[in-house]
């Protein structure tokens, strides 16, 4: 018979109506899924007892078969192009946003809005790669719970902007997960420690993961977590400590020029030694290299502390910066929450304790704390708790506003407003007889438009001609409980209106995703092929449209023969789209990308020139 959990008084579920909800920590290095069973938050392990799922997806063949987690992780060095790790860094990001793109082994495809990856299973967007990870976690949860899954709370870094949040939500939708809410990771950690139950004050969340370091300053007041400041280092984590031990071992054993296989062996021995030193004051680092050479070294905690001292110090710089940004002194902090496996290292605990003058909160497993908090929030949103004196609210991490004349940002919803929220502001026309207004939606704290992130643009038309300054245009910003934005504009005298739901301009619309989902359910057998085809078509159509609009705008940059080549490639692309051959479509897309490359470069030059011109006028 079915297995039951103990419900809160009066909240027993009817048969087959379980309100199963999960929390997902979709991490850069590892991901976890947790739920609340009989009132206790617990992380769900896989069949081998592993709680952590390495956030690695490997495309195994052209049909799009995937391996996820540990299996994919071990293949990274032999198949770097098709085994995608740390995809979270690419979510909602264009190629230009990724500073480290040159250092990554992937074949990037520059697509409008979000970068894509060329794999042996075709071109994949970071959303699709993340969806594979989420699908694996969802399957694990379904195997672990009685009855259907109602939904999930998924955590995102506090600094994620709208595009990155939307991309995360889309990935969940593609994986067939109903997103109850997106929750900031530091907020989730604070919830796991029960800080939301009354302990008002300022908290710092120190999150040292495998490859990233984030620090957040939160203020809890009346059940609302406000993110006062975030800082961090996107290239600092536990892996760097492994590497320090590895370098130390090379030096001690007098080794150099190791083969990649030996390097991996020694690095994993270094990691084991590091982990052992969290429990013991001494350990041995041993590995047998491929030529039979035995490396066996004694490593003391004190030595490890010395060789990693500057890494520990490096984490304190972002901590100081975040406190400074928040205008808070270290002595005003009420508690420090430790997140991430790397915070188990005693020297980290000690450095944090010394810096803040108090012992950090560390009695929950730092790998699990974010997922546990997400599960607690999910359980609440699913309606499994009754005594709700605390209604947890989240806040907008970055201000939202629009562009005004002169390339300046006018904030409409300031950062740290609790969500859901709606705010309106009135604007007017700039020129006599102006009948349309272009509305450029921005996110960020900076004054100049060029320093903020552009989220969307739309145009309000049909403004009756009036003298400049006479029209009254009311612009309303509305943010739902997930932190996602819709913007509407209305001219008050004529009633002319326009609105937009802010979908960052990458890839798939809700309808596309919905269609892909329902189709894949209806045709399970040819699901993979159908999905690949549709994705290729959506991708191709996006490119065709982008090319068309580029030609319409800047067609004069092309001479007749160049124009001819592009037109031919465009037609071929359209033809391929009508067919059902994924490979043909992808080839046509590749060709079109190739022949428009020079054109794109010229357009960019022109835009830069225009932008520079605009600035001069502004200065005058």
């Amino acid at each position, binding site marked *: 018979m079915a297995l039951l*959990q103990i419900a809160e*008084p009066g909240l027993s579920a009817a048969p087959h109506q379980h309100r199963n909800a999960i929390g997902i920590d979709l991490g850069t290095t590892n991901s976890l899924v947790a739920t609340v069973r*009989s009132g*206790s938050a617990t992380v769900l392990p896989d069949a081998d007892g592993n709680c952590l799922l390495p956030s690695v997806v490997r495309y195994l063949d052209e049909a799009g078969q995937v391996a996820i987690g540990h299996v994919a992780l071990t293949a990274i060095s032999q198949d770097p192009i098709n085994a995608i790790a740390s995809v979270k860094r690419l979510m909602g990001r264009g190629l230009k946003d990724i500073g480290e793109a040159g250092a990554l082994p992937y074949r990037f495809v520059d697509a409008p809005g979000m970068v894509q990856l060329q794999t042996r299973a075709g071109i994949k967007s970071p959303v699709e790669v993340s969806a594979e990870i989420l699908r694996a976690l969802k399957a694990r949860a379904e195997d672990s719970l009685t009855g259907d899954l109602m939904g999930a709370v998924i955590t995102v870094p506090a600094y994620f902007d709208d595009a990155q949040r939307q991309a995360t939500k889309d990935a969940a939708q593609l994986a067939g997960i109903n997103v109850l809410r997106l929750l900031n990771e530091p907020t989730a950690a604070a919830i796991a420690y029960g800080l939301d139950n009354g302990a008002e004050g300022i908290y710092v969340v120190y999150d040292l993961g495998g490859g990233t370091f984030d620090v957040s300053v939160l203020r809890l007041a009346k059940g609302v977590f406000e993110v006062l400041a975030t800082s961090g280092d996107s290239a600092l984590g536990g892996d760097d400590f492994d590497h320090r031990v590895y370098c130390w071992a090379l030096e001690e054993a007098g080794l150099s020029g190791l083969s990649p296989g030996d390097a991996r062996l020694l690095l994993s021995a270094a990691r084991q030694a590091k982990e052992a030193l969290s429990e013991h004051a001494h350990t041995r680092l041993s590995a047998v290299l491929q030529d039979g050479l035995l490396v066996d070294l004694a490593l003391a905690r004190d030595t490890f502390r010395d060789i990693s001292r500057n890494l520990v110090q490096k984490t304190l710089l972002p901590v100081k910066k975040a406190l400074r940004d928040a205008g808070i002194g270290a002595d005003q902090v009420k508690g420090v929450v430790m997140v991430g496996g790397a915070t188990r290292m005693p020297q980290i605990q000690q450095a944090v304790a010394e810096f803040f003058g108090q012992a950090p909160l560390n009695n929950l497993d730092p790998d699990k704390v974010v997922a546990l908090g997400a599960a607690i929030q999910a359980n609440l949103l699913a309606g499994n708790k009754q005594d709700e004196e605390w209604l947890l609210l989240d806040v907008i991490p970055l201000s939202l506003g629009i562009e005004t004349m002169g390339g300046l940002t006018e904030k409409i919803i300031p950062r740290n407003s609790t969500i859901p929220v709606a705010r309106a502001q009135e604007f007017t026309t700039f020129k006599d007889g102006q009948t349309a207004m272009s509305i450029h939606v921005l996110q960020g704290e900076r004054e100049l438009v060029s320093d903020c992130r552009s989220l969307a643009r739309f145009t309000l038309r049909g403004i009756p001609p009036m003298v400049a300054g006479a029209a009254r245009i009311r612009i309303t910003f509305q943010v739902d409980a997930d932190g996602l934005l819709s913007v509407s504009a209305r001219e008050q005298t004529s009633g002319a209106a326009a609105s937009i739901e802010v979908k960052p301009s990458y890839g798939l619309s809700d309808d596309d995703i919905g269609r892909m989902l329902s189709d894949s359910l209806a045709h399970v057998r040819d699901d993979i092929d159908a999905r690949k085809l549709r994705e290729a078509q959506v991708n191709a159509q996006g490119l065709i449209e982008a090319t068309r609009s580029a030609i319409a705008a800047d067609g004069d940059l092309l001479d007749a023969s160049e124009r001819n080549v592009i037109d031919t490639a465009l037609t071929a692309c359209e033809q391929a789209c009508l067919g059902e051959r994924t490979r043909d479509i992808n080839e046509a897309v590749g060709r079109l990308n190739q022949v428009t490359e020079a054109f794109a470069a010229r357009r960019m030059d022109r835009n830069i020139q225009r932008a520079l011109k605009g600035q001069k006028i502004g200065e005058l």
Partner: protein
Amino acid sequence: MAITLSESAAAHVSNFIAKRGKGLGIRLGVKTSGCSGMAYKLEFVDVENPDDLFFESHGLRVYTDEKSLSYIDGTELDYVKEGLNEGFKFNNPNVKNECGCGESFNV
């Protein structure tokens, strides 16, 4: 007769109550619904009802009411793992039929 907890169920119940931070015990009951007639109720107890009955098992209070008792008398509540799933299972000697999923039953 009585309602009892297996050793494993008792260990889990006391752990869950400790983590929850409050609770006098648990309540087992039946309500009419489900595809096979009746469904189990399993809840924490914070307040006793005037017509409550309770049994002691492994030092824990197991509450029920008279009407429910007639359907679940003799039940042993067990805690089991099935694959990745785990939870409480009613070993109820009164059951004649249950629906395929076992979430509702008939006596």
